[in-house]
């Protein structure tokens, strides 16, 4: 029965679990959950799940609090979700869009001053959750018990996973993506012609590099061997470090904002457009803009997916409303505005968006998915990774 469900929601699981682990064996979702807990015990000792949970009681308790709930998220969709939540439960709710660094800073300062206004926050920078918010008891992890079975990543609770993919211009290259292996991006032919965000300014890119070195090295080594029919020789720690170094040395185009990045790849009438790496959510924004964009099918991965976690402020005055919000975010109904942007719910029961302008659903198993178990390591390694990138990129 459980196995059957995994099959059905296989794609989602592939996205939410670390791809490599899933390929080896398909454990029950509960096992995976507790395993994750064990691995990250340093960050937050236990993930407590209340066995006597009753949703109706929580709703009642939340409504009885009579407090305004303030929720932070890095996507503008939070305003819509807040409006829906308020309509459904009659709890006054305000959704505020704020980027992860600002949210984290704010929560820490508020906690220090014991004057909490951010009740719940969705934060993409998991490393700062486990390295800063949990140890300082600024934020608390809470899992909706009735949904726990279908939530594979619990520590911290992953609300959504945001995929980013390699893309190419399908007008200039009408047949297929001009590359089939990400090692080609390090070749002379693509020198200065790969478009990406700034790894020094966007933690998810830095963390992607870290993830590559932690769980992607073998795949990258294999990809190298199949591309060039020889074994990679490197003086770096592993194949991933070598790839990152070569990528940096090949002088990719670095973009300050995704809008121009996407234009660089997708504008029609270009002779030599770059390959790009962009978030799937952008596809929807671009429907009107008539860009010639398509996902590039490269090995070993067509992209990566980074998790966003949802935590409640430890000092919130409306703990039940906060929990109810978390619960709501983990249901299909609640998360819908984000799912329709191409994000994948952290609850494996929640289906993908029905219409998907990017077509990423076909490639979910080919994404490198960050696990929360490595978040702490990613946070620790971040300055080193940025240094490494700085040195490689500046040649």
């Amino acid at each position, binding site marked *: 029965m459980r196995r059957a469900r995994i099959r059905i929601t296989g794609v989602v699981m592939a996205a939410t679990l670390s791809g490599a682990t899933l390929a080896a064996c398909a454990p029950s979702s509960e096992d995976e959950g507790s395993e994750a807990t064990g691995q990250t015990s340093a960050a937050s000792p236990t993930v407590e799940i209340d066995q006597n949970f009753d949703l109706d009681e929580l709703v009642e308790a939340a409504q009885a609090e009579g407090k305004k709930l303030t929720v932070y998220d890095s996507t*503008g969709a939070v305003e819509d979700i807040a409006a829906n939540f308020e309509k459904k439960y009659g709890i006054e709710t305000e959704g505020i869009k*704020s980027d992860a660094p600002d949210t984290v800073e704010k929560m820490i300062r508020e906690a220090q001053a014991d004057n909490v206004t951010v009740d719940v926050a969705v934060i993409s920078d998991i490393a700062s959750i486990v390295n800063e918010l949990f140890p300082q008891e600024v934020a608390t992890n809470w899992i909706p018990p009735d949904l726990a079975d279908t939530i594979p990543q619990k520590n911290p609770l992953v609300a959504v996973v945001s995929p980013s993919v390699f893309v190419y211009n399908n007008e200039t290259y009408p047949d297929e993506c001009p590359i089939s292996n990400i090692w080609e991006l390090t070749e002379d032919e693509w020198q200065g012609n790969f478009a990406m965000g700034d790894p020094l300014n966007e933690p998810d890119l830095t963390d992607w590099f870290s993830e590559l070195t932690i769980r992607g090295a073998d795949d990258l080594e294999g990809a190298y061997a199949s591309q060039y029919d020889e074994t990679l020789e490197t003086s770096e720690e592993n194949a991933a470090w070598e790839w990152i170094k070569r990528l940096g040395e090949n002088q990719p185009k*670095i973009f300050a904002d995704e809008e121009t990045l996407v234009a660089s*790849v997708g504008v029609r009438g270009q002779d030599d457009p770059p390959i790009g790496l962009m978030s799937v959510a952008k596809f929807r924004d671009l429907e009107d803009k008539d860009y010639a964009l398509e996902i590039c099918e490269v090995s070993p991965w067509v992209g990566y997916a980074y998790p966003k976690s949802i935590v409640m402020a430890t000092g919130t005055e409306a703990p039940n409303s906060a929990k109810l919000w978390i619960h709501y975010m983990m249901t299909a109904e609640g998360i819908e505005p984000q799912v329709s942007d191409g994000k994948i719910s952290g609850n494996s029961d929640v289906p993908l968006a029905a219409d998907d302008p990017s077509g990423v659903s076909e490639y979910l198993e080919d994404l490198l998915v960050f696990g929360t178990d490595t978040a702490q390591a990613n*946070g620790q390694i971040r300055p080193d990774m940025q240094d490494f990138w700085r040195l490689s990129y500046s040649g």
Partner: protein
Amino acid sequence: MSVEARERPNATQEPPDRPSRVARLRYRLNVARHDPTLAIGIVLTAVLAYLVVVPIITLVIDGLQVQYGDQQRAQKDPGEWTTYYLWRVFRSPISELLFWEPLVNTLVVVVGTTVIALLLGGSMAWLLARTDMFGRKWFATALVVPYILPSWTFALAWLTIFKNRRVGGQLGLMEALGATPPDWLAYGRVPIIITLGMHYFPFVLLLVGNALRRLDSQLEDSARILGAPRRTINRKIVLPLVRPALTSAILLVTAKVIGTFGTPYILGLPVDYNVLATSLYQSINSRQTGVGAVLAATIVVIGVSILLIDARLVREYRRFVTIGGKGAMGRVNRLGRWRLPAFLAAAGVFTLCVVVPLGTLFLSTIMVVPGRFELSNFTLDFWIGDDLDSVGFPQGILVSEELYTAAWNSVRIVGLASIICAVLGLLVGYVVVRLAGTRLSSFLRQAAFLPYLVPGIAFAAAYLSLFAVPRGPIPALYGTFTILVLAMVVNQLPFSSRAGISAMMQLGREPEEAAQVCGAGWWRRTTRVVMPIQKGSLAVGVVMPFISGIKELSVVIMLATSGTQLLTTLSVDLVEYGYTQLANAVVLVIAFVSFTMTYIAQRLTGTSLAAGLQG
């Protein structure tokens, strides 16, 4: 030394019947009532120490203590003292790329920008204030617009025109015309310097223009009668008289450029040209708080060094009173046959610094697909449509209610802050000048300017801690309207205090003393003599904070907890949704509101920062 010996001088000074302490105090209070400069100075000092100095100290402490998550690197527990961040920024193998190279680039950009701003602003100020060029009044208003626009709009315009295949995407204008610009022209040092210079020259224009306008032509006439050639007059009379305004302007430009992130980042990224602000934002965005604090503190230190140089300059070139009790004359120089060329030069500056960036921005709001010049691609829907595809924002900017709410919030909050700022600034100027030479004066002068040197992002975070709990007589202001206004006042105070100081320096004691002789009290003198004379600089003191505050984002994001939507946050939200056209339309609205308020302020005060240049 005996007690007796020490008391003797006192005994001789005081009359035998020794008036009581109360009587002495009453006398002092009485003096203070008529000239409460010192009292005001002390109050201002206390306020600024709390609002400005304390946040900076917390910033420095952040850079010296181990932050959470860095235990392993620093090999100490969070909260312990460490030199790890200092080492990382200044001495580690990466310091070259993280700090030293950006430092050099920053200095190059600062010097270059200042030179351009001085050339543009100085020449325009002279033309507007001292000549009979055509359309002075109009230009005086129009040439403030470059500062009203957010600086990144210049970067956007630059890239639209000069970009090449290194960035890709739509063809740049030059490319489309068949002349592909080289990288050095398209990105990095050259465009950063030019665009920032174009953005900041109004500082020079306003401050120097104001000083030039006040300059008494009789001084020049006297020199001319004595046979001094034009050059000597400029060097020996005009330049020294406008020097306080000039150094102020240079300081304002320099310090702002050091902390500016957007433009250098957008234009520098394609060729890996980094400045200190780039490193700062990169550390903050990747939650390297300690390194961020060290970098922010370094930026403050560089700013302070420039400040000290400025203080030294002002001291050396004593202050010159240009508004005395005597009559003054402002005479214009006749340009003669240079009248038309001068006009064309001003028109050229206007075109480059106003028409081009505004035009580029406007164009981006009326095109569905960027860069495709076909008639079918143009639309006004983003302005006045009511059936857009955009989820959550289905109406054009001008017909959407959200815009008007946001605009009203912006005007309300920033307007209030600016007015408080202006009055405070004039007071600071008054005290600084009247008590010149005292420690109080120099502390005030510098403390009022410090916020300007602190990158906004660092300041906002410090404020959050400072006002989240009640401290002594100060209640917890966090989450209130007040703290947002307060933070804005402090953030923008440098403008008003500079304007105040530079204006007060030129105002001698004579007018005030004349009033005092006639029996006017301090309040009356201030409101009837000082304020009216200074209404021009008071207007500058309101408008400059307003223009700058209405573009402000980091303070707002950090401190506005009620989710009060301002124009800036609305624009950022729209960018997030991917509605570039709508977002840019909001930016134009911000510029429009700024401009309108500037204009209204001018009308209300009768003079103006701009028409004020005309006299």
